[in-house]
């Protein structure tokens, strides 16, 4: 069953056509990994899924509802069902790490403070960042910020998780930890995830479905095994890392 379906989505910035007739389906309960070269518009695509960017043309259907045409106010209630990890973390720099992770909980739950603090501690431990609650984001390294942001995205255990390059800039050991965390969370709670990555290994290990974005279109969308065997030259070039 499709949870999300993008139909013929077009998006251009100042004449630069980033998405050019893109089609994509995301199945409920699956992890979809989107691969593609840098600058092809993966981040732009992901922002379409929660209405941060609206398409110039085409539909972004969430359970049949077109987010592209949804009024701003209804978008807000839709967004509560998502967890979003930004490519650069985007932690609120006026709050401590602990406050950042507690932020969605304070906004959308009426949990008591002790419960929120407990969740913060647990999530930070899950992303291997114990005891940084009182640090400001600027006191952490880029990779640490990314993991704290991941903890924030997971805080509400959202139905649908959108991760923009969750493992970029992390060491191999932490990368594995994060990969396992995402896999466990999604499969354990029967959630849905869309993960953007350049990392082929991560994609192959994590994905149920791999979608390949090239020149504004999804060239192919298939299981990791068949993706590796894809006859498409663009895919093969990407997999082998051959220069143009």
């Amino acid at each position, binding site marked *: 069953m499709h949870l999300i379906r993008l139909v013929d989505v077009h998006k251009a910035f100042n004449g630069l056509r980033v998405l050019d007739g893109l089609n994509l389906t995301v199945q409920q309960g699956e992890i979809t990994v989107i691969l593609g070269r840098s600058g092809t518009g993966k981040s732009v695509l992901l922002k379409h899924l929660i209405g941060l960017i609206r398409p110039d043309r085409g539909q972004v259907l969430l359970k049949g509802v077109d987010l592209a045409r949804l009024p701003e106010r209804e978008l807000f209630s839709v967004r509560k069902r998502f967890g979003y990890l930004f490519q650069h973390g985007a932690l*609120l720099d006026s709050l401590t790490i602990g406050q950042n992770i507690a932020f969605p909980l304070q906004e959308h739950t009426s949990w008591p403070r002790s419960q929120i603090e407990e969740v913060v501690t647990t999530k930070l431990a899950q992303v291997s960042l114990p005891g940084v609650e009182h640090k400001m984001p600027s006191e952490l390294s880029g990779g640490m910020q990314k993991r704290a942001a991941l903890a924030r995205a997971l805080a509400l255990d959202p139905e649908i998780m959108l991760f923009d390059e969750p493992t970029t800039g992390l060491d191999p050991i932490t990368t594995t930890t994060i990969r396992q965390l995402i896999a466990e969370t999604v499969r354990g709670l029967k959630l849905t995830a869309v993960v953007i990555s350049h990392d082929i290994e991560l994609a192959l290990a994590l994905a149920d479905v791999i979608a390949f974005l090239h020149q504004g279109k999804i060239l192919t969308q298939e299981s990791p095994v068949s993706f590796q065997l894809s006859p498409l030259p663009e895919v093969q070039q990407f997999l082998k890392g051959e220069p143009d």
Partner: protein
Amino acid sequence: MMFARLLARLGDLFLGLLRELGEMAMLLVNCLLWLPRPPYRIRHFFGQLEFIGVRSLFIVALTGLFSGMVLALQAYYGFRKFGGESLLGGAVALSMTREIGPVLTSLMVTARAGSAMAAELGTMRVTEQVDALLAMAVHPVHYLALPRVLSGLIMVPLLTVVDVFIGILGGYFVGVMLLGINPGTYMQKMVEMVVASDLYNGLFKSMVFGLLLALISCHQGLKARGGAQGVGLVTTRAVVYSAVAILIVDYMLTALLF
């Protein structure tokens, strides 16, 4: 050809101005719409009150002191020409309550807090923190603009009270201690010439200015694009637009109120 281009430029400017005004009106309306809705982030709000109010206190007190003192000197120079030195206290107090207090306070708060607001929100915009708020289903107007606009509305008048009070003290110091005007006369003329509505109209003005400067600064900040350069641009704009708006609205309000 040249002329047509000039006209087009003028039209662009005018449309740009209209768009800015429209966007600001929308921001204000949005703030009002969000105002009654929970959650009420009290701590967060107090943080803004402190930032705009308490932390501007020193600079506002300083400008108040010196503006009162220089007013006394200048008014003395003028009044001496027709033997009206005794009116000095009233002149200083009137100028402070009606004009100098509200305007200078607002300009100082613009310089100190308005610029900071624009830079902070601008940075949040270009580092995707505003997008992050949206993604967490928190409206930036509700979380970022509303507490700042509200703080501006509340704190600028209160800062003006301090500014006016210290300005009058400064005027008293110069008038009585340095220029040797009789303290009784000075106070008497002041109390006689200033009426309560002078004070309250001045405070009303500064309330409007506080709202304006916070609104403009937030609007500019949220409009930032690009990177550090974009943030710099909107910060400059926030200060310039706020200062110009304060002076223009000051004229209009003075014409209407007094």
